[in-house]
């Protein structure tokens, strides 16, 4: 910003151990359009990455006083990003177009977002435009059954890439795809056999940046074990101040259980407010000048752990006097006018 341009996009690539993050990155980095992309990785894996702006960072997390894991600051990441910023601003590297941060398989992506949003310098120079999560079609179901981290990674994703579809049974791939849709209805899902995928499509911040909120799958609230997701709208414009009060209160009380909140909120202005949060960490809300499509209704997806959809809807319903609008679950038979 100080050097007269918008913030540099940071893409977080996450995914379980062996789910093909590095293979995907190797494929992506070979594209000419990605040459001015810096890559921060936790470990140099067996699949060697060859790239001139590759940096290794050792995960060093500083736990803050309240002990909440998603509000930790990754010091290593802060240092690496500051160094890149310095090189970029001094003109010692070609103009930095993008930074890709690859997490370790077990990592929760929330601290990465928190680190960038909370740092007094980084927040003005970098923005997180996408969280990409890789899932391995062969072992994906197993990981989702056994590891909450894996579910959190799916919930945090803007785009999910299902890898190794060539090695898995078509039936199990279909089952996995529907499960992914149930956990995170707001994420776009791509398939990548042999690490092949459309790089432009993957890194194109769909439509309006990270704000692309695909129409949630019509249907009732989805429950996957302890993880629930619910898509909802409101019957009118919502008071943004009131929504901020409700959401900040919810995140304080139950932030660790709110795996994701994402969507557009109609606040009675020309365009919507983009709401995007992962656990306690909320992206700086963006007030758009206009709606990205014809549908001018609020559309919000909540992915929670242990909070039932009816509890959330009940709470929003209780706040209706403060919001100035009532919540309506989005889905079949709910009488939401379709435009």
């Amino acid at each position, binding site marked *: 910003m100080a050097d007269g341009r918008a913030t540099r996009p940071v893409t977080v690539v996450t995914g379980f151990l062996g789910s093909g993050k590095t293979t995907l990155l190797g494929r992506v980095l070979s594209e000419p359009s990605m040459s001015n992309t810096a890559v921060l990785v936790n470990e140099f894996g067996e699949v060697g990455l060859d790239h001139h702006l590759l940096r290794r960072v050792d995960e060093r997390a500083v736990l803050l006083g309240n002990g909440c894991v998603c509000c930790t600051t990754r010091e290593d990441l802060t240092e690496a990003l500051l160094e890149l910023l310095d090189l970029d601003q001094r003109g010692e590297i070609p103009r930095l177009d993008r930074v890709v941060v690859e997490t370790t398989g077990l990592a929760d992506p929330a601290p990465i977002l928190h680190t960038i949003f*909370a740092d*007094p310098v980084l927040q003005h120079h970098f923005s997180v435009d996408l969280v990409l999560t890789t899932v391995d079609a062969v072992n994906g179901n197993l990981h989702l059954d056994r590891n909450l981290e894996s579910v959190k990674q799916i919930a945090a994703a803007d785009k999910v890439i299902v890898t190794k579809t060539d090695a898995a049974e078509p039936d199990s791939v279909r089952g996995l795809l529907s499960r992914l849709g149930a956990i995170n209805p707001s994420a776009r899902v791509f398939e990548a056999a042999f690490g092949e995928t459309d790089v432009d499509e993957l890194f194109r911040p769909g439509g309006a940046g990270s704000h692309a909120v695909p129409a949630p799958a019509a249907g009732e609230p989805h429950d996957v074990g302890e993880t629930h997701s619910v898509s909802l709208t409101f*019957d009118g414009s919502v*008071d*943004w*101040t*009131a929504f*901020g*009060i*409700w959401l*900040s*209160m*919810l995140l*304080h*009380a*139950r932030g660790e259980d709110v795996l994701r909140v994402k969507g557009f909120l109609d606040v009675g202005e020309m365009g919507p*407010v983009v709401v995007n949060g992962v656990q306690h960490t*909320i*992206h*700086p*809300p963006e*007030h758009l000048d206009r709606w990205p499509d014809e549908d001018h209704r609020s559309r919000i997806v909540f992915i929670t752990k242990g*909070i039932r959809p*009816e*509890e*959330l*809807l*009940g*709470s929003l*319903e*209780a*706040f*209706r*006097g*403060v919001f100035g609008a*009532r*919540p*309506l*679950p989005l889905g079949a038979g*709910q*009488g939401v006018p379709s435009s």
Partner: protein
Amino acid sequence: MCVLCGQDFVAQVHWTDRHLEDRARAAAPGSDPVAPQGDRRRDRAHRVVLTNEILRHYGLKLDDWGGSKYVLRDRKGRSEIVQDLGSLWPAAERLVGRTLDPLEPALRETLVGEPAFAPADGG
């Protein structure tokens, strides 16, 4: 901490205050420099009114303090100074002695005078 006014240096704008800052920054050069201040004050006053509707359930009250901070008080006369909504809820928790949870059924009764978990009628 500023030694003159005793206020903390605020390096981090809470996400709920972000729109005010963005609007002030986006103001065209030459536009009325006082306008964002007016916006800000109106917004703060509005926030205090709305927040108090929630806080009355817990016997707390919020006031704007000089246009830069808020003061949170309970009925015993204890008070806390808070910067934004991010620090309001932990402070409220300290005064009340428990977490303020918007999902709590009893809060619904205070807000809308209805028993908890009445099924939403969908419109």
